[in-house]
């Protein structure tokens, strides 16, 4: 009979337990839950404890213009406190057009905030908490530590903290999916240009509407990005503005309320696969595909198909789309009115456009010998390098603040040269109509969105202030009808408006 002694049975069970513990990690026996450490790992605990007291929820009231009327709109976003003075960093699209901001701290206390600066080009905004209220209420907050986004590594674990869909103090986690994601130049709601001068950190940490403006942190609890956008039709595709981009912008917003950039009027195209055609070394230069009319670049003699090689001696390269933002930023970072030397390789091969030294604008120089014939068949060698000088202009948005002219039932905006250039309208002074309210005087006069008001009652109107002043004047004793001259597409029309 095989009957094992009790001791042997105990020995066998101890042995099998020991074996089992090798598989299941139980120190004292199979299936012991006490031994399982369910807490988040130390880095995760540290990072979330570090950042959470600095993350805020922003409840924002904006003025939204639709169909000729101003309509208040409410939205929720996130932000994080960056210094003891109570500055909160968030996105432009959260707070950049706010009429009222309520900040909810991590401990759920409320305080009012004020917008003190914004930059739609990088989609950032700076909000100041009401420090009087903070002191009066005895509120407490922590500040975030800003990291270095240039150190971010592909695959690095990160976390996002914010208020997705109003769920405040939500932490999500993932990894860095891409450190240098680029998109084609974009605009955001309202037509504001954005994303021209930076790329994004892509993450699969869940980022939803409401997360905007909140921090993306590494496991040291340092902010490496500002969560800004996602792709709604995808899964786990979130994008954050690198914190290093924000550091420079913050300074400008604190000092001036906005960032001023330079404009020269060139549109760039990456050179991949065109190197052979333009006889260039790989990853040298960037292609100028278009030069804006009436721009510093045009005045300097820069032409489409020039290869930009250097700016003030600094080489610029863009073989791939991801490299374009850096080149644009290099140019735009120059102070307004800077004198720049652009080194370009000229690629016009036909005789008509051969630029001899004498034909270059004043201040330019050709480094190739000017022995190319002035006329005759195309014989000029490709690759003549020229240095052209220009003075930078101010980078202007196509968009300005919308305003309501309630007496006439319409909304308007000032024109900018950028808007006129983009719309290819020959320069006109006037006021742009952005919407009309059904049944209003503007609507009954057949004013339309897109019309440019150039004269009212035969007097020129060049700004929204002038228009509002004229309208206010008539409010007191409205005339039966007012002639409004507008530019629409290519035509000019007189409309009869009954105030």
């Amino acid at each position, binding site marked *: 009979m095989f009957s094992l002694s009790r001791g042997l049975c105990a020995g066998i069970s101890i042995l099998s337990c020991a074996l089992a513990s090798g598989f299941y990690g139980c120190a004292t026996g199979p299936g012991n839950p006490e031994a399982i450490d369910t807490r988040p790992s130390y880095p995760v605990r540290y990072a979330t404890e570090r950042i959470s007291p600095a993350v805020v929820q922003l409840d924002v009231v904006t003025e939204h213009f639709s169909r000729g009327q101003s309509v208040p709109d409410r939205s929720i976003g996130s932000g994080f406190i960056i210094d003891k003075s109570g500055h909160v960093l968030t996105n432009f699209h959260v707070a950049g057009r706010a009429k009222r901001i309520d900040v909810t701290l991590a401990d759920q206390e409320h305080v009012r905030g004020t917008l003190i600066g914004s930059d739609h080009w990088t989609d950032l905004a700076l909000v100041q908490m009401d420090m009087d209220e903070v002191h009066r209420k005895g509120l407490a907050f922590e500040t975030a530590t800003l990291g270095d986004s240039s150190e971010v590594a592909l695959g690095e674990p990160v976390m996002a903290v914010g208020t997705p869909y109003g769920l405040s103090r939500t932490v999500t986690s993932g990894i860095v999916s891409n450190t240098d994601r680029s998109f084609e130049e974009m605009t955001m709601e309202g037509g504001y240009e954005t994303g021209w001068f930076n790329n994004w950190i892509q993450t699969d940490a869940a980022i939803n509407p409401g997360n905007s403006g909140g921090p993306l942190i590494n496991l040291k609890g340092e902010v490496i990005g500002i969560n800004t956008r996602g792709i709604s039709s995808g899964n786990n595709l979130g994008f954050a503005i690198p914190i290093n981009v924000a550091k420079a912008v913050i300074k400008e917003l604190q000092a001036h309320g906005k960032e001023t950039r330079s404009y020269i009027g060139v*549109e760039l*195209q*990456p050179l*991949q*696969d*065109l190197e*052979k*055609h333009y006889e260039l070394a790989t990853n040298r230069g960037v*292609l100028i*595909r*278009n030069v804006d009319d009436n721009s510093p670049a045009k005045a300097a003699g820069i032409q*489409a*198909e020039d290869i930009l090689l250097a700016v003030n001696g600094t080489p610029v390269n863009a073989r791939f789309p991801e490299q374009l933002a850096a080149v644009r930023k290099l140019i735009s970072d120059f102070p307004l009115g800077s004198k720049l030397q652009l080194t370009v390789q000229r*690629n016009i*091969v*036909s005789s008509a456009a051969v630029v001899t030294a004498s034909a270059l604008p004043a201040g330019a120089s050709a480094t190739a010998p000017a022995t190319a014939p002035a006329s005759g068949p*195309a014989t000029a060698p*490709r690759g003549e390098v020229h240095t052209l000088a220009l003075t930078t202009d101010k980078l202007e948005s196509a968009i300005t603040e919308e305003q309501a002219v309630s007496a006439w039932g319409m909304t308007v905006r000032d024109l900018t040269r950028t808007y006129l250039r983009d719309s*290819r309208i020959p320069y006109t002074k006037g006021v742009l109509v952005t919407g009309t309210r059904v049944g209003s005087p503007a609507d009954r*006069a*057949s004013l339309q969105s897109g019309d440019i008001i150039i004269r009212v009652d035969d007097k020129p109107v060049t700004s929204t202030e002038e228009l509002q002043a004229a309208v206010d004047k008539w409010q007191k004793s409205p005339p039966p*009808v007012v*002639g409004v*001259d507008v530019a*629409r*597409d*290519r*035509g*000019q*029309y*007189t*409309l*009869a408006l*009954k105030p």
Partner: protein
Amino acid sequence: MTRFSRRLIGISLVLACAAFSLPARAEVDIDAKAKSVAQSLVIVDFTLRNENTSREGSGQGILLSKDGVILISDSLITESLPKEWITDIKVRLPGKNFAPVPAAFLGRTRNRLFAYLKTEKPVDAPAFDIGDAGDIKLGEEVFSTAISSESGGYVTYVGKSEIRAILPLSHTVGNTASFGLTRGNSPVYDVATGNFLGITLPTLEESMIIRLGGQDQRIGLLDPDQSATFLPVNEVTPALKNIPEAPFDLRRPWLAIDEPTGLQEDVRALKKIDQPSGVVIGSVIPGEASDKAGLKARDIILTIDGKQFSNSPVADLMVTHFERAIDDKKPGDKITLGILRDGQKMDIPIALGEMPRIPAEMKHVFSPLVGITTRDLVFSDAYSRRLPQDTKGVMVALVKNGAPASLGSTPLQAGYLITKMDDQPVDNQQQFLDAVQKESQKTDLKEMVFVVIQPTGQTQVCRVDLSK
């Protein structure tokens, strides 16, 4: 987009609706009349084919002469289609068991409503007989005659209805829910007398394509199989009677003003204009007839050769009537426009120009090496891109799906204006085709690099990979 007076001109429509049951009254023998008329009705088939698509089109035609001239609706083979893309036009004749005979396109009518085809050989079928013209009256009972398509067995059928409204046509079809007539381009008759009243408008399949602002906009009629609107006899008789014999090229007169609008009542009061209707010039096209004559933006045109051109109170119709009056002239005709400018009345003599060619009229050529169809430039190409009129290049009309030009990070697209190819300027289509021909001889051809102007007016460099 630009508009240079290409709206559908003003004519009257007649709207008919489903009849209620009415007490019996004198009627012509509809069965006999319909079968007789149907002898002159034909089915027109054609294929629209280009590198990317192939579609069949079909509609009804009216045989006008024994030589085989057929009247079709203008929108059946729309003006915006290049002739290279219209193939296999065939006409099926009733007398021959509807066996198809080939036909060629002859041209379009001045009023943009009809077009003509002609069969290769004379036909043995009766030409359409207008007969007596009838009066259009509200409430009048009407019927129309048509032949069904192949799926219906090419049988003769009728639709019966009554006239509900008589509408001046602006640039939409004024239509209320009504059924009862037959397919488009069918003759319409008075039930009581059998007199000819008009021709039905095309249906959804053959729907009217109205050219608004340079972009074709399809007007959908409510009932896809039945037309409920017809053009009255006075509008259609010229097209039925002026039968062409050979292909013709209709050149239209061109005043060259952009964005004309009707004179709104409020503006009339503001400017103290006593005349009820006028047309306001939005802008003049630089260098063309209006500009040369000294017309300016915001001028108000009140008369043509001393006569009012419209007595409609509806602003849109004023423009329609004005454009129709101009359309009745010929290129080169001298007219005098009575205008109002800054409160002053003046007479402006003007020699009408010639309407520029439209894109579809230019020769379309497909280059298999690159995979694009190109055409020479027309006036609107530079004008819409706000480029100088002396801009040279060749227009991309089509990019074949999957061809080299459609691939890569900078594909070519329809609407791109090619100005340079491999560093050589491209001034016109012939230069482009010659250059492509030369390149195709190379044994080591790897790529072609184009400089293009996009529809936005901005330039771009496009590389087409041709390596095997």
